[in-house]
């Protein structure tokens, strides 16, 4: 009947596609086999978890307060990522 269905529907198939980002980051950035040694790029030296947390915090701050503390701001694109939610 309705043309516009809500995007989030609790179907198991969809749920597996849309796992919560926080749960995914716990595993993808902190889990998996780590290969040290001959990796081309020094990615093993990057603290993926810390960096992602910084990105998340910057993003959440920009959503909840409209403007994050500029000193904490990692990039300026943060406020434009979620234009579906009005900043206030």
């Amino acid at each position: 009947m309705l043309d516009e269905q809500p995007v989030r529907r609790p179907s198991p198939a969809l749920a597996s596609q849309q796992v919560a980002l926080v749960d995914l980051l716990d595993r993808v950035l902190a889990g998996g086999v780590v290969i040290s040694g001959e990796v081309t790029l020094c990615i093993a030296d990057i603290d993926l978890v810390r960096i992602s947390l910084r990105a998340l915090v910057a993003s959440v701050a920009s959503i909840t307060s409209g403007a994050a503390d500029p000193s904490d701001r990692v990039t300026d694109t943060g406020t434009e990522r979620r234009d579906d939610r009005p900043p206030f």
Partner: protein
Amino acid sequence: MSGPSATWLYALVPATGTGVPADLRGVAGEPVRAVEETGLRAVVGTVPLGDFGEEELHTHLEDLAWLETAVRAHHTVIETLARGGPVVPLRFATMYHDDTRVASLLAERRADFEATLERVAGRTEWGIKAYADAHALAHGGTGDPANDAGGRGRPGTAYLLQRREQRRAQETAHLRASEQAAAIDAVLAGLADSTAEHPPQDAQLAEYEGWMVLNNSYLVPESRTAEFAAAVASLDDRFPDIRLEFNGPWPPYSFTAPDGDHDAGGGPGG
């Protein structure tokens, strides 16, 4: 694709398993393919260094939208492979110069990778998060001592006493919460092959209230999935002040370290 590129690793699977789906795309939207060596298959993709070079990657990782897209793409490849048999996921952003070096890696660490594949085969990672209701734990059963803390005639003293009682109540609540979390973990770990702990998630980022007293992964044999789920439901009833939430099934992200690096199932050290 032109310009310098690298080989991004997604996962390792047995070379005898089902092939890599032709329509599978990776973190750069690239087709995903296989590099095989001595019975092992690395599932990889070619990514441009213009986006995935060290410096570029550093910048991108600070951008949540980019990070989310890439992390989900990495996960999609691994999850798709996991449907076809055992997989060993690689840490996000593991890259080699070229396929030849990937093949050398497979040859060099064959025994290690085969052991890990065997350890995770037929098993699934389930995530369990436990949230404590701080208020209920602080005041459960004993009434609210803060209400009796002081007389009306001495508002300053009353206030201080009340604060002290509140702090005590909160400490008690913390203690109860961690005791109950340990009891929950003991039951679940008993059903799992291995347990891995993740740090509690940030309340704001994960959008919850109260305390996250458990954020664990359990590697559960598929034959025991139903039993594990029943145990979660039963524990949820047994501890009314703790809310349990599960996520998964996951490919075994949290169980890829060599043997001995995880808590052995069935024998938690305390």
